């Protein structure tokens, strides 16, 4: 709680409650409930990463605490990212949205260059940086949300339009999906597409357009599955996991065995048997299964409730935001974290086929944790409802760069 206290002192003190009729919003303290929930989830993560990884770490590195130490290191980096997000007014991200997305996309392209990327299990997702590895798709997710928030708030009035509000973001999404699927990273593609859809819809896109998107995605997903034999196998394994428990369905079977042996209160912290190399990726994508095994339904429900509170607070921040950009940003971040958590839990309980998505805040992974820290920081900054400071205000409006929107802007100027 010491850290919470310190953080609370960084923020301005509480002002009088906002008047419902006031047109100007009053600056308030950041959402401490959301921060507490975040910390709790991260703490659960540290404990569970240690418990789930100790056997693997001992075998690979001769040090059972290898992953624990790294996770703690990443966590401190995530704290710095969180403090930056909390203390820098979020409007700056609106102004930097385009270059940020450009850099993220560039890094995504770099991963595809042979020799640069570190590969694991047939997928090249990482850029090696000494002893650490950076996963650009995590940065892409955040910058894509920032960009969409900027784009949709800027062209708010034209969101219902087909070309300006539907086709353009879809076009960018197709580009992004192409790069992501090249890795291949099915999970991130799904999250980026899903978040775009939700943000479009929330920003006021027509039901018809959103329905169309859903229809296209609904058609694309089976195709994406069918073109890759491994995805077909995974999908079939998902449909009937106990048919071939030693083959393709091994992973999902082990996840179920792990999760199912938990009962009400679990086998006890550290007492998982499935982490004895039976369940692969026990400390990353399938940490929720180990959590279910060791802490039981009680532990599982607690983690779910924490995510529910997170989503509730996140949407509340979105509703109360002072600007459309802030609102959409908060909504996008919350939706992305909430949806990804739901998907990960669904995979761990075999409700959804295997994707390769982490459980936010809990799973082991530096890129993910640091990005999430930044995202929560931004979310908390939005919750402060501050007007942008002068120096941010003085930055040129992103239109000045006019990069992908040259024609649209020109037409707007003409119309004006």
């Amino acid at each position, binding site marked *: 709680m010491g850290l919470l206290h310190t953080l609370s002192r960084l923020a301005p003190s509480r002002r009088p409650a906002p008047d419902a009729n006031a047109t100007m919003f009053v600056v308030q303290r950041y959402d401490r409930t959301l921060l507490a929930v975040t910390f709790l989830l991260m703490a659960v993560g540290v404990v569970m990463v240690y418990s789930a990884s100790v056997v693997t770490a001992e075998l690979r590195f001769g040090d059972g605490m290898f992953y624990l130490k790294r996770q703690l290191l990443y966590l401190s980096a995530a704290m710095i990212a969180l403090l930056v997000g909390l203390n820098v007014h979020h409007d700056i991200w609106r102004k930097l949205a385009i270059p940020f997305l450009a850099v993220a996309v560039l890094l995504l392209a770099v991963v595809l260059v042979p020799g640069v990327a570190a590969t694991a299990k047939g997928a090249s997702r990482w850029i090696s940086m000494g002893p650490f590895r950076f996963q650009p798709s995590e940065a892409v997710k955040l910058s894509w949300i920032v960009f969409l928030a900027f784009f949709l708030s800027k062209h708010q009035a034209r969101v219902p339009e087909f070309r300006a509000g539907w086709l353009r973001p879809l076009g960018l999404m197709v580009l992004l999906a192409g790069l992501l699927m090249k890795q291949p990273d099915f999970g991130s593609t799904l999250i980026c597409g899903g978040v775009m859809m939700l943000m479009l819809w929330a*920003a006021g896109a027509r039901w018809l357009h959103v329905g169309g998107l859903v229809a296209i995605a609904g058609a694309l997903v089976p195709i994406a599955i069918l073109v890759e034999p491994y995805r077909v196998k995974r999908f079939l394994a998902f449909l009937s996991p106990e048919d071939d428990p030693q083959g393709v369905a091994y992973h999902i079977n082990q996840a179920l*065995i792990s999760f199912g042996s938990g009962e009400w209160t679990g086998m006890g912290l550290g007492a998982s048997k499935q982490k004895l*190399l039976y369940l692969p990726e026990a400390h990353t994508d399938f940490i929720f299964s180990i959590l279910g095994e060791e802490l039981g339904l009680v532990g599982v429900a607690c983690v779910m409730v924490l*995510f529910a509170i997170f989503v509730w607070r996140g*949407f509340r921040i979105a509703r109360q935001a002072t600007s*459309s950009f802030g609102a959409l940003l908060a909504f996008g971040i919350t*939706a992305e974290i*909430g949806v990804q958590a739901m998907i990960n839990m669904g995979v761990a309980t075999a409700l959804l086929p295997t994707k390769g998505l982490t459980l936010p805040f809990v799973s082991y992974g530096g890129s993910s944790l640091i990005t999430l820290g930044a995202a929560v920081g931004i979310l908390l900054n939005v919750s402060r409802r501050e007007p942008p400071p002068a120096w941010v205000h003085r930055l040129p409006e992103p239109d000045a760069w006019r990069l992908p929107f040259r024609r649209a802007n020109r037409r707007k100027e003409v119309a004006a």
Partner: protein
Amino acid sequence: MARNVFRRTTAVEPGPRRGRILILSVFLALAFVGLIVRAWDLQVLRHDHFQKRSAGQHETTITLRASRGAIYDRNGRELALTAMVPSIYAVPRVLTDAGPAAAALGPLLDLDVGSLTQRLGTDKAFTWLKRHVSPAVAKQVMALNLPGVDQRDEPRRFYPNRTLAGPLIGFAGLDGVGLEGIERDFDRYLQGKEYTLEAVRDAAGRKAMPGGALPPEHLSGYDVTLTIDARIQQLAEAALTAQVKAMRAKSGLVVVMDPHTGDILAMAQTPAFDPNLFRQAEPDDWRNRILTDTLEPGSTIKPLLIAAAIDLGKVRADSVWNGYHGRIKVGRKTITDVHGVDQLTTLEIIQRSSNVGAVQVAQRIGKDAYYSYLRAYGFGEPTGIGLQGEVEGSLRPAKQWGLIHLATFSYGYGFSVTPLQMTRAMAAIANGGMLVRPRLVMHVKDARGRIVEEFPDRHVRRVLSAQATREVTEGLIMVTQKGGTGRKARVPGYEVAGKTGTAHKVDPLIRGYSKDKVKSSFVGFVPAHDPRLVIYVNVDEPREAQYGGVVAAPIFSEIAREALPYMGIEATEEVSAEDAEAEPEEEAAEGLDPQARPWWFEESVLAGAPSHLVVPDLRGASLAEVVQRTSELSLRLEVEGAGFVVSQHPKPGALLPENAGIAVTLALPGQIAAGGER
């Protein structure tokens, strides 16, 4: 700046989006409920199913056997003990590259690379590569750092004296089950009990025991202490081996017994084998032939016959018998002596081993009396020594005896006995007429040194009167005096009583007795008037000579000459010039050297590795004992505390290189409990 799209109060186009967040919230809430229901279904409703599958793949048990008890001689010298040695195993499932691994392991473990590649290339979870390797080899294997190749310490049976008493001790197999000899027959005491440990197994097949792996003390096997004296055993083996070699004989046997208690002090046979390497020996040599083989006693039966006749009172020691000049006719068969005489006394029948005289004595007492005495001596029944495979010999009932049987039985042909039976019958004469039960095991102790079972010595029955034995003893002494057949059995300084025997073997080809194949024997006791040792010697098919007095008697003499001073029995007779000249001094050339052993185990013989020391169990010993034991073994000693040893490092049974150190912690009895509390 654009206003928040989600706020109702904000009149911004196009309409309220607050509802959409609500819709999404409801949707996520539904998913949330769905997940909780799913989790409840998996974790609570279907818990048993998954629990069972989980247990099925990680739960396992490991069955171990607590360590086998040791076998000691009567002075506490180890004849068989168990030490922990490494065994190499592989988890082929983990090993990715079978070829290079096999190429590296093959020469180290002395295994064929081709078949090793095949074994490592499978998907199995476990396979032994080589069990019981030397620590040096294990170290080299571990240095290869191959994934999935590991070592595990296993108990291995060692026979530190090598061939000493090999056929008597027998051996235990790899799994610690006795297969031959004492190891088999006393397996129920020696064998450690099996115990099962619960363990978990990881996906690579490695097992771990969360509950620990040390067996409780009460599961260890019991220690068996034999009546054998390793020193006498070694003397007997050395003398026997030398003479068998000199006589170019097929084989030989020696039994040494204490006539009063029936304690077997030595049981030697040649050819012997090394139980450490029992697989390299002929299975035929594994047998303890002293119990399992029978032979015709030949002339060695004569003192027993005459003792019976004197005991009955039908014959006096000084009775005079007609010698018939060496030829007597029984039915259609003529029985002859080597040196015929005109007349001779009863005792001279023994001294000269006269068949003619023996036949007359047998005829005097009759077949029923002779048969009942032979039964009383214990022929035709097991001796009760407690070893498997003991035979009773063949002795037909008196009803089936004809005239010729009574005659041939009088000089030891026509029935068969075991060497052990013969020894014990002679012991009855030596001890004043009591038949003893041969004793091989003195007692059995548990791991804490408490006696579990004792085997007291037992007199079975009285066979002869003391007077009869005294008179026959005089005849037996005459055998080794001037004019006797067994003069080579003399021991300088001691009076020897004994009887020679030369039994022609049955040749199955000619369906009769072979002329040149004999079993030469000598059985006697010493000192004649206060017998401490009964020694039975039998040499099979000697080729350089045939008479028991030439072939077997020197072995008796050799053993007795060394054993009597060793046992602290003082010489009573003056050493005559004749004795001194007749007995060439010869040192035991090979076998056990009691000073150099017994703790050292020369592993080099087994595995070509440097010598290692089996760490002794010092627990419970006082400091003085510890110092003595460790200096005997030239171990460096580190001592902590005072009193009695409560713990030691390394643990008993571990192997240590030479000149290594051992650390012991001592405490006084009162402090042990307190120490345990801390």
